[in-house]
């Protein structure tokens, strides 16, 4: 494999780790951690898309050429995406706490009042 593809590949592995957590774990908290890992993998991928090997920070001044900058747009997007992720995580942790109050357990197999 070409060395420059390695970060993307590792990012995919990272995503799959999170997916494994969501699909296979029985503890609600571990599912949430899996979800958060997935989210970070997506954000990391978005940053990687705009990254340039050996690029410099995207600050413009008249004496510099704009050839070797990294792409600043994904960084702005990732900031937004992280904030959204924070909101989701805060909400899901809040729901998990309430679930623990109601059911007295974090085990997803014992939380089954619904049929679907």
């Amino acid at each position, binding site marked *: 494999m070409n060395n420059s593809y390695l970060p993307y590949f590792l990012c995919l592995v990272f995503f799959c780790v999170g997916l494994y957590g969501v699909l296979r774990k029985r503890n609600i908290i571990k599912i949430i951690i899996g979800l958060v890992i997935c989210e970070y993998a997506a954000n990391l991928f978005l940053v990687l898309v705009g990254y340039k090997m050996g690029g410099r920070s995207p600050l413009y001044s008249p004496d510099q050429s704009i050839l070797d900058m990294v792409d600043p747009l994904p960084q702005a997007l990732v900031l937004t995406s992280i904030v959204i992720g924070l909101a989701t995580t805060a*909400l899901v942790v809040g*729901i998990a706490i309430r*679930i623990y109050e109601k059911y007295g357990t974090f085990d997803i197999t014992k*939380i089954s009042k*619904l049929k679907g």
Partner: protein
Amino acid sequence: MVIIPFFTILPLSGAFIIYLVGRHSKFFTDIFANITTFVLFLLSLFILFFKPFEPLLYKVGGWLPPWGITLVIDGLTRFMLITVNFIAWTITLFSVNYMEKFTSKYKFYTLFLFMLAGMNGLLISGDIFNVFVFLEIASVASYALVAYGVEAEELEASFKYLVMSSFASLCILLGIALLYSYTSTLNIADMGVVLWEKGIVPVVIFSAVLFFLGVGLKSAIVPFHAWLPDAHPSAPAPISATLSGVLIKTLGVYLLLRIFYNLLGVNQIFLDILMFLGVLSIMVGVILAITQMDIKRLLAYHSISQIGYIILGIGLGTPLGVLGGLFHLFNHSVFKSLLFLNSGAIEYTIGTRDLSKMGGLRKNMPLTGWTSLIASLSISGIPPFNGFFSKLLIIIACMEKGYIGYAIWAIIGSILTLSSFMKVQKFAFLGKLNSLYKEVKEVPIFMRTAMVILAIICILSGGMLIPYLNNYFLLPAQKVILGGLDYKNINQSINNEK
């Protein structure tokens, strides 16, 4: 067009003001929320009749399209804006009385307006990352609203919904990242231009798969439907009506149309997959619905089934099929909202959702009974009501294109729908009145008003197919979808005008 951003500004600022003032004055909350949604509905009507046939563009901060954020209004957006804001208005009207039994009503209105802001923003946005942001605003508000009752079942449903739906959002985000890496732009129309010039390569197909996974989960097409029958019934009735009526269509079907038809382009393989999944949704949804005894759960399964009709119609790709799909989208949001509001009215008066414990309610609640009958006949496709016309269009379009098998399945699905709604009528409204409910009265005035408005639309909206009327509402939306990749010229056409 300076009016366009108000579709998000109004509900966002409304939510903010209601949260500040709401805890002190309940009266103010009701009035203010209703005024906000009603003004939004009027705005969407105004947008429909103001220069009805040309796209409108708003440049945020004055930046020109390929670089800045744009808000775009075209035929499809106008159609969806009317649907969303009309349903939202009737639902706030219904909530005035219904939400009395919950504590802290102002939080409900705040979250509801956030969800509305998210949906409206998603519809008007012409920038793909903004689409993602608004999608998440609407989704996060809807997770909180599903858990609004904070009982055990509601929390469980909300958790399930949240995990699956966040995963869908992540898929959409990854798809956006991949598309951005290929096209180096975020403006949807500009992205279309770049894709047109550079051609479709495997990375675009991979992002298309991610997008399909995302919107499939959001719109609950059959292999991705597991969260819907839990999440939709668990919410309070007005929220069930919003989720089933407009949220799955805005976040799911609209996004599917915009991304696949207008941006990436469709081919026959994709359409075949869509049609197959549509028919599968029709059958699986309706078969699972028949055996349910919980009225809201039954309605939720029917949402899957009716989304199947929409997907089938759109997936045909012929003018008639697309028209039928879009018309069914509007009709379904009207009658499914009405049915959920009916179930809410029943729950409000007798406090149960179990069909076997009801009976004879039409005697004491005539208005709920009759509106529910109208909605039931509409959803099952009985002639004078709107559901008949849209289903007929879809079935004729199937025949026209030679998919006789799919047409037959659609008819069978419709018959099964009729049978399951006859069951609802029989158990809930006909038969002997349970002696426990002798004292039951009709629901309060605002709930009645909301139900009557929706029932009237159910009866009248079949008339939208009349040649002159459909010029404004249905045909422009159909034109956008059939135009397909022509969407990429939208920036161009407006820049030239000036």
